[in-house]
C-alpha cells in the first residue's frame, strides 16, 4: 500500500487547477464565507483556556537598543517599553555581535527586573533586624564610617558595573581617599587572562575579535563549555556548517558537555594537565621543525619564569626554550594528561599546518586555575611559535565571562593595583597621568597596591585588632556571599562581628545581603544609563528607559553622594587641586549641578560626563574610545576607535596587525607597540607544569569541579526569579559518572553528601544529566542560593593573578541515609 492517505502532501505541491479542484475552491470560499457568521461558533468544540480568552493588545510600545545584561558576549537586544515598564525583548538585528539571535537568558532578560522581592528601600540592620531608613541617613552612615578610618575601608566591585560606575568608584577610592583597596569580582574570573596578556604582549585584552569565529578552520576550546556559556558565539561557529563551510571543533575538556556533543574531537584530559598539553604542542612544533621561524625571529622573544618564578620572568634563548619544552614528550604528556598519543599528535598537527586557520578560545577552565597566568602564557606561546597569529580566524582569543569585565574592570582599572587606561598605581608615570586628568595634587594617589579580592575578604573577616584589617566593606553589583571560594573562611567570618560593617548595593536579597549591615536598593540595567565593554573590546552604550522601583537609585549616584557627604565633612581627598568637589559637574552656564542630590542627578547625563573624562585615559595605551555620542548611534565600537580624515570614526578589528590597527607603523606587519621588552616584540613563554595544591587522595578520592549551566547567570539572583529559566533548571545537583554511581549504588534523585576539607553539602544526584563526568569527577553548578557549593571550594590562587581555582579540589561523596 502506498501511503495511507490520498490527500496531497501539504504546502509544497504546485497545484495545477483542474475541474475538481476548481469546484472545491468555489465550494470552500462559500463555506468559509458562511462560516464567518456568528452562530457557527456554537457547533465548534474549542477547548477553554484557563483564565479566559481575553488578551490585551499592547499598543504604543517604544523600542530601544541595549546590550544584554548577562554575559560577556555582549549581544544587543531591542527592549520594548510601554508605560514605564519593559514589556518585550527581542534580538537586535542590526548588532554585529549576535545579528538578532539571543540565548534563552537574553530573551528573558526583561523579566529580571520584576522579581517580587525587589529591594526598594535602604535598610539598616539594628539588633539583628533590618530596619528601613532614608537615603540621606544611609549615605551619612557610610560617610561617617569611612571618615572615621579611611584606610580600613574597601570597595568590592564588579565586572557587571557599568563603565561610569566603575570609574566613579575608582576615582573615589584612588583619587579621593588615596585608598587602593578596590578590587572586583572579576578578580575571580578574568585576572589570569589579564596577567597572561600583560606578560605576553605588554598590554591587556585580546588583540582579535569575534570576526575570528567567522573565519577559523579549526576551533580549539581549552576547557570551556562554549555551547552553554557563550551560546550565541557558539551558534555563530556551528551555523557555518549549514552554509557548507567546514569547521573543525576540538573540545579539550575534563567532562563531556553539550559542546562536546557538537565537537569533532573530544579530548578529555586530567584536570590541571592543560599545562603539560600546551608545552607538548610547543615541543612537537620544534621537534618537527614546524614552528614559524620567520614570525618568531621578527616579532618574538623567548621568556622563562625565572627562579623564583615571577610575572615578568627573564629572557631565555631559543635553545633554552627548546630544552624546557623537550621534557613534555608525547609519552610523558599522555601519562600526565590521560590523552592518547594520537590525540596529542593531532593537536600538534593542527598547529603545524600553517594552511589552516586555528582559533583557540578559553574562559574559566584556564583562568580559574592555580597556574592561571602560566597556562594563559602557554596558549599564547603556542600561537606565536606556530605563526597562527594575526590573520582573521587564526590566533588565541580569551573569552570574557561578565558583560563588562573588559569595559569596566580591565579598562577602567578597578583593580587594586591599577588605574584607568591600563596604568598602574606603583608606576610613577601612571600616577602623574591620573593625577593630571583628575586635577589632583601631586602625591594624592597611593603607590602601594591594595588588597586583591581573596586578601580583601580575608582581611575583612580577620579580627579588627589586626593593624591591616578591613572594617568597612562596600559591595556593589555582585554577590560575594555566594561566589567567593571557601566561604566559611572568606565570608562567614564576619557573622556576629560587631566591629565589621558590610554595605551591599544590590537589587534583590542575596547570600551577601544576609550578612549585610546596610542594604542599598540599586537601579538595574535599563533603569539607568549605562555603558558596557564586551569580550571583543566593543564598548556599547544604552539609555535609561524606565525608572527604578521604589527608592532604588543608581550605583554611580550612591558613590558620588557618599563622596559629597565626605566633602561636606571636610575630608581633604574629596577636593581637586582647584578646590572643587571631586565629581564637580557644571551646566552650560558654568553653574555647578548638585548631582549628589538624587532629584538633580538626571538633569545632565552623568554617564556621558564621566565617560568623556575617562576617555582621556584610554589614549595612554592606545585603547582609544569613541565619543559618547558616536556610541549612541552604533551598536558598539571596538577600540581603538580612531577618527579618520573623512571625519568618520573607525573601529579596530585586529590590534597590532598592519592594515587593521591604525597605530601600527607602516611596514611593520605586526607591531606589539606596548611590548614588555620595549622593542615591539611579544614574548613566547615557557612555564612548567606545577601540580595542583590539592589532588584526590584516599580520604577525598574525587575531583570536585564547579561551574555554570546555560539557564542561569552566575548566582541566579536574576535568573532564578525568571520562571522560564527557573523551571528549566530549578535547583543544583551533583553530576557523577555512571560507573562511579553504580559502584556507590547511587541513582538519579538520591540525596548524597559531598564533602571537602572545608565544608559539606547535601545534593541531589544527576547521572549523565547535563554533561557526562569522567570517572573520579564530580560537578556541581553554583547558581543555587540554597546550595552554596563555594563552602567546599579551595581559595588557593594563582601566584601572579591572585585568581582562585574553582575547578579543582579533592572531595568525597556518600549516600545520605534516608
Amino acid at each position, binding site marked *: 500500500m502506498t501511503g495511507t492517505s490520498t490527500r496531497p502532501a501539504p504546502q509544497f505541491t504546485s497545484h495545477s487547477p483542474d475541474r475538481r479542484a476548481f469546484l472545491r475552491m468555489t465550494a470552500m470560499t462559500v463555506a468559509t464565507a458562511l462560516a464567518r457568521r456568528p452562530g457557527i461558533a456554537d457547533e465548534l468544540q474549542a477547548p477553554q483556556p484557563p483564565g479566559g480568552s481575553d488578551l490585551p493588545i499592547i499598543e504604543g510600545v517604544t523600542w530601544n537598543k541595549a546590550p544584554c545584561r548577562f554575559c560577556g558576549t555582549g549581544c544587543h537586544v531591542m527592549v520594548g517599553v510601554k508605560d514605564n515598564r519593559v514589556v518585550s525583548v527581542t534580538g537586535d538585528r542590526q548588532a554585529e555581535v549576535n545579528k538578532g539571535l539571543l540565548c534563552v537568558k537574553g530573551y528573558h532578560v526583561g523579566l529580571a527586573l*520584576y522579581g517580587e522581592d525587589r529591594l526598594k528601600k535602604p535598610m539598616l540592620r539594628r539588633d539583628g533586624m533590618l530596619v528601613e531608613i532614608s537615603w540621606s541617613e544611609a549615605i551619612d552612615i557610610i560617610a561617617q564610617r569611612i571618615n572615621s578610618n579611611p584606610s580600613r575601608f574597601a570597595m568590592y566591585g564588579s565586572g557587571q558595573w557599568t563603565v561610569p560606575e566603575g570609574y566613579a568608584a575608582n576615582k573615589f577610592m584612588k583619587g579621593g581617599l588615596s585608598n587602593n583597596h578596590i578590587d572586583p569580582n572579576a578578580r575571580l574570573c578574568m585576572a589570569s587572562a589579564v596577567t597572561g596578556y600583560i606578560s605576553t604582549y605588554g598590554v591587556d585584552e585580546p588583540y582579535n575579535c569575534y570576526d575570528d569565529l567567522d573565519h577559523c578552520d579549526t576551533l580549539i576550546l581549552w576547557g570551556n563549555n562554549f555551547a552553554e556559556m557563550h551560546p550565541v558565539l557558539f551558534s555563530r561557529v556551528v551555523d557555518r556548517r549549514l552554509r557548507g563551510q567546514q569547521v573543525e571543533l576540538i573540545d579539550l575538556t575534563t567532562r563531556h558537555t553539550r559542546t562536546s556533543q557538537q565537537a569533532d574531537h573530544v579530548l578529555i584530559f586530567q584536570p590541571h594537565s592543560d599545562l603539560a598539553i600546551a608545552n607538548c604542542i610547543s615541543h612537537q612544533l620544534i621537534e618537527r621543525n614546524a614552528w614559524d621561524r620567520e614570525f618568531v625571529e621578527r616579532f618574538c622573544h623567548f621568556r622563562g619564569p625565572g627562579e623564583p618564578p615571577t610575572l615578568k620572568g627573564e629572557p631565555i634563548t631559543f635553545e633554552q626554550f627548546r630544552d624546557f619544552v623537550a621534557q613534555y614528550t608525547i609519552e610523558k604528556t599522555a601519562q600526565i594528561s590521560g590523552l592518547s598519543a594520537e590525540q596529542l599528535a593531532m593537536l600538534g598537527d593542527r598547529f603545524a599546518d600553517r594552511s589552516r586557520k586555528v582559533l583557540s578560545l578559553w574562559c574559566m577552565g584556564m583562568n580559574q586555575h592555580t597556574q592561571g597566568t602560566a597556562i594563559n602564557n602557554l596558549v599564547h606561546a603556542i600561537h606565536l611559535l606556530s605563526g597562527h597569529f594575526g590573520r582573521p580566524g587564526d590566533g588565541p582569543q580569551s573569552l570574557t565571562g561578565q558583560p563588562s569585565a573588559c569595559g569596566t574592570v580591565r579598562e577602567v582599572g578597578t583593580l587594586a593595583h591599577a588605574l584607568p587606561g591600563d596604568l598602574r598605581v606603583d608606576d610613577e608615570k601612571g600616577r602623574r597621568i591620573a593625577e593630571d586628568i583628575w586635577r589632583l595634587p601631586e602625591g594624592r594617589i597611593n603607590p602601594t597596591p591594595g588588597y586583591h579580592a581573596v586578601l580583601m575578604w580575608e582581611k575583612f573577616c580577620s579580627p579588627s585588632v589586626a593593624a591591616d584589617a578591613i572594617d568597612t566593606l562596600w559591595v556593589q553589583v555582585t554577590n560575594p556571599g555566594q561566589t567567593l571560594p571557601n566561604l566559611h573562611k572568606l565570608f562567614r567570618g564576619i557573622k556576629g562581628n560587631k566591629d565589621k560593617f558590610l554595605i551591599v548595593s544590590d537589587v534583590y536579597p542575596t547570600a551577601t545581603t544576609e550578612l549585610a549591615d546596610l542594604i542599598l536598593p540599586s537601579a538595574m540595567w535599563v533603569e539607568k544609563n549605562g555603558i558596557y565593554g564586551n569580550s571583543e573590546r566593543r564598548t556599547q552604550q544604552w539609555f535609561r528607559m524606565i525608572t527604578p522601583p521604589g527608592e532604588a537609585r543608581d550605583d554611580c549616584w550612591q558613590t558620588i553622594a557618599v563622596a559629597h557627604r565626605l566633602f561636606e565633612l571636610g575630608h581633604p581627598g574629596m577636593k581637586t587641586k582647584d578646590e572643587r568637589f571631586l565629581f564637580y559637574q557644571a551646566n552650560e552656564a558654568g553653574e555647578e549641578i548638585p548631582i549628589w542630590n538624587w532629584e538633580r542627578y538626571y538633569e545632565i547625563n552623568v554617564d556621558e560626563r564621566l565617560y568623556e573624562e575617562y576617555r582621556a585615559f584610554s589614549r595612554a595605551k592606545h585603547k582609544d574610545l569613541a565619543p559618547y555620542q558616536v556610541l549612541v548611534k552604533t551598536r558598539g565600537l571596538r577600540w581603538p576607535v580612531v577618527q579618520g580624515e573623512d571625519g568618520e570614526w573607525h573601529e579596530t578589528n585586529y590590534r597590532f596587525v598592519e592594515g587593521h590597527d591604525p597605530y601600527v607603523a607602516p611596514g611593520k606587519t605586526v607591531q606589539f607597540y606596548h611590548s614588555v621588552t620595549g622593542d615591539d616584540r611579544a614574548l613566547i613563554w615557557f612555564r612548567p607544569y606545577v601540580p595542583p595544591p590539592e589532588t584526590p587522595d584516599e580520604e577525598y578520592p574525587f575531583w570536585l569541579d564547579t561551574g555554570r549551566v546555560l539557564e542561569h547567570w552566575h548566582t541566579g539572583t536574576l535568573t532564578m526569579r525568571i520562571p522560564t529559566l527557573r523551571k528549566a533548571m530549578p535547583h543544583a545537583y551533583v553530576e557523577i559518572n555512571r560507573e562511579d554511581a553504580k559502584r556507590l549504588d547511587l541513582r538519579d534523585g538520591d*540525596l548524597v553528601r559531598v564533602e571537602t576539607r572545608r565544608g559539606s553539602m547535601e545534593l541531589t544526584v544527576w547521572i549523565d544529566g547535563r554533561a557526562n563526568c569522567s570517572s573520579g569527577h564530580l560537578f556541581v553548578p553554583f547558581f543555587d542560593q540554597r546550595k552554596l557549593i563555594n563552602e567546599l571550594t579551595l581559595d588557593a590562587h594563582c601566584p601572579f593573578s591572585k585568581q582562585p581555582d574553582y575547578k579543582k579540589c579533592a572531595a568525597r561523596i556518600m549516600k545520605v541515609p534516608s
Partner: protein
Amino acid sequence: MTMDRPPFSHSPASKLSSRWGTVLGSLACGLGLAGFLTGINQQTAPRDRQSLNWTKPSEETLGALAPAPTYDQIDSRIYGFNRDWRSDLSRLRQDNPGLLDPVIRTPEMKAQALQDRLRTRAFDTAPPAVPHPVDQRTAESCLACHGNGMTIAGKTATRMSHPLLTNCTQCHVEQAGSVPQVLAAHTNLSNNAPEAAWPPGNRFDGVKRAGPGTRLLPGLPPTIPHTLHMRDDCMSCHGLIARPGIRTTHPWLQNCRQCHVANDDLERPAVSIFARKTDAAQR
C-alpha cells in the same frame, strides 16, 4: 480319529455369550469403520463459502495483499504486515487537513490560539519553552519533528518558524527541567530564607500577543502586526498544522508577502527610504 472337542468347552451359556460377543464386536467395528469413512468424507467435502461469511475481496485488495512467503523465503522477506511501519516520524500517517479544506475560524478560536501560545512563552516574542521531556539535544533530533512540523493523533509538533539554526537548546529550554527532583527535603539550607518564601514570584507583564493586523478597508489583506524576526516561515503559525484559530484561509498561496506587508515598529527601516542623498547633505 474322532474330532476331539476343542480344548475349551462350549457350554451352551458360553456359546451364547461368545456369539453375542462376536456380534457386538463386529457391530463396533462396523460403526467405527462407518464413522471413519464418514469423517473422511466430511473433510474432503468443500465447505460452503456462505457459511463462513466470507466475501471475496475485491481485485484491488487482493492485488495489494502480500502473497504468503514460502518457507525458504521467510528469513529474507519483509513481512507484509510491517511494510507500513515507518522509522521516520515524519512519514507516519498524519492528520493534516487538506490544502483546500474549509477553514473555520472564529474570534474565540483566535483568542484561544493566542492564549495557547502563551503557555510556553513568557511573552509574545520569547522563544517557546519545550513542553515535553527531551533526551536528545542534537539539532537533528529536534528537526525530526519540528523541521517540517507534524500532527499525529491530535498532537502537533509546530514547525520551526525561523531559518535553520543548529544549537536549538540555547534558546529553547525545557519547561520542566529534567533535573531529578529532590526526594528528601533540603536539610542543609545554607541561607536563612524559609522554604516557603522560595521561589519569589515575578511581576513581569509583557506583550502577550501581536496584532491584530490592520486593514485600511474591509476586504483588504491585513498587515503583518508582528516582527518578522525569527518568523520567516509564515506557515509555521498560519499553515495547515497550525493552531486553528490563526490558520490562514488560503494556505495554497505561498507568496505571503506580496499582499501582507509588515506594520510592526521593529520592521520599519531606521532611515526614511525616500530621502535623497542630497537631502542629507543639505541638513
